[in-house]
């Protein structure tokens, strides 16, 4: 028996008797019993994937793809933010095999989650700073609308660098597109003109073709007639009777000529 065979056999046996593995079961059971841990594990993985995606976005060159990925990250963040309260409730629940310190720790973890979720970069710049700056203006907004004009300016300029770049790119692409469309429209105009000229030319040719048709028909019928007549004439000429008569007469003439020649000599 080879090593590989051994290994496969050992693997299959282990898999079969996994349910008797005490340590493993305990681990699984803990996760199985502890909904919080399971949930928390899920959360962690989701946050990890979101962070990975955020990293990809920074490397992404295509703006449209970057925007799409940012939108997805934001959606994930929203979903996670919704589920945080659920997790919090689970955190407070008492589970067997857990110490009070661990329980408190769990609570802290859950409280830290929202901050972690917000920290995931999703394309909106200056998240934490904005929240601190916006906080007072959001509270006062319902009362006075133009209160934060100055602050408006700061934030305004801060945001406009990226957006002005975007706008520039948009304008350039629009101009290029318009140029392309202009060329296409010119080409189409030329094509349309040529097509309608061709149409008129063909219309012009139609009566001529009809005339040609009638003339050729007449010519073919004439030819057929002539052919038939020619055939008859040639047949008449070629009849063997006439041919023999011709030969006989020719011989007679030659004979007479020879006779005369002899007589005159």
């Amino acid at each position: 028996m080879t090593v590989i065979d051994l290994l496969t056999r050992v693997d299959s046996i282990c898999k079969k008797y996994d349910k008797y593995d005490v340590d493993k079961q305990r681990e699984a059971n803990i996760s199985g019993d502890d909904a919080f841990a399971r949930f928390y594990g899920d959360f962690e993985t989701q946050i990890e994937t979101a962070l990975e995606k955020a990293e990809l976005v920074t490397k992404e060159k295509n703006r449209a793809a970057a925007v799409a990925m940012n939108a997805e990250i934001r959606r994930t963040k929203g979903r996670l933010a919704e589920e945080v309260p659920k997790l919090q409730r689970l955190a407070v629940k008492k589970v067997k095999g857990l110490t009070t310190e661990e329980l408190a720790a769990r609570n802290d973890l859950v409280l830290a989650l929202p901050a972690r979720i917000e920290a995931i970069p999703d394309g909106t710049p200056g998240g934490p700073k904005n929240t601190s700056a916006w906080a007072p203006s959001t509270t006062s907004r319902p009362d006075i609308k133009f209160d934060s004009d100055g602050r408006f300016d700061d934030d305004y300029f801060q945001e406009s660098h990226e957006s002005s770049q975007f706008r520039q790119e948009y304008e350039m692409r629009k101009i290029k597109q318009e140029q392309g469309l202009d060329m296409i429209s010119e080409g189409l105009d030329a094509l349309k003109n040529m097509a309608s000229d061709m149409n008129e030319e063909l219309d012009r040719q139609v009566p001529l073709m009809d005339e040609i048709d009638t003339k050729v028909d007449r010519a073919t019928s004439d030819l057929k007639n002539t052919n038939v007549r020619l055939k008859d004439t040639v047949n008449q000429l070629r009849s063997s009777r006439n041919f023999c008569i011709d030969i006989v007469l020719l011989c007679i003439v030659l004979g007479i000529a020879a006779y005369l020649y002899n007589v005159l000599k």
Partner: protein
Amino acid sequence: MSSDPDKMMSKADKMTKLTLTRWSADWRGATELYEQAANGFRASNKYEKAKVALEKASKGQEVQASPWDAAKHMESAAALAQKLSIWNEVADFYRKASELYTECGRAQPASDALGKAARALEDVKPDDAIQLYTDACEILEEDGRDQMAFDLYRACANVYIKLEKFTDAATFFLRLGVAADKCDATNSQCKAYLSAIIVYLYAHDLKQAEKCYNDCSQIDAFLKSDQSRSASRLLTAYNEGDIEEIKKVASSSTVSNLDHSIIKLARKLPTGDVTAIQMNANDDLDEDDLT
């Protein structure tokens, strides 16, 4: 037969002259000899004599009551006359050929003959050329083949433009429009109307151009076409004195699909009178204000 064309000519002449010994002219033999003589002359580049031979051959064919061959010979004679630059003979020969073709009942070759004549005389005797073109167009219209007349109308209008007789040129374009209307050739019709409007504008005749545009707009096919849109843009640009707009319309693809001479006129279009027209319009307003 002797290969010397001169001898053939003299022999043929003798065959056609009536003398005491010859009581009826032998036209058939004479015509054959004339044709051969003409070929011989042409081969040896003696065009004058070839032309004379062809003339006589044509007369022979005519007497023999075969107008088609007669006409063909006449046309060849005319082509030779063209090479020799004897212009009045060119016109005469082509006219004769055209009459013979009409005798055969073939309108197309008749008008073709006149068209060839006109083209030959375009540079040298433009008035005659115009007359020939008009006659050719009439022949085709009588026969109901208006579509063939388009090219002739266009050529005739070009000659008028070269002579700077712009109203006549515009009239011809309108006639082209009528012919096109009969055959439902809407594209040619609209192009003809646009050309007429441009010609009027080139002749500084804004009122006439507007009148022309209004008249042509009565016709559905023109109203819905690209050409009428370009015409209206051009006229509004003229009324507002907007030279940029005029130039833009003149270099647009609609105008570039017209005849070369019209394109040239269009490119030259704002012929300096635009501001004057604008001032006239302003003057009218002032008068109204004062009263």
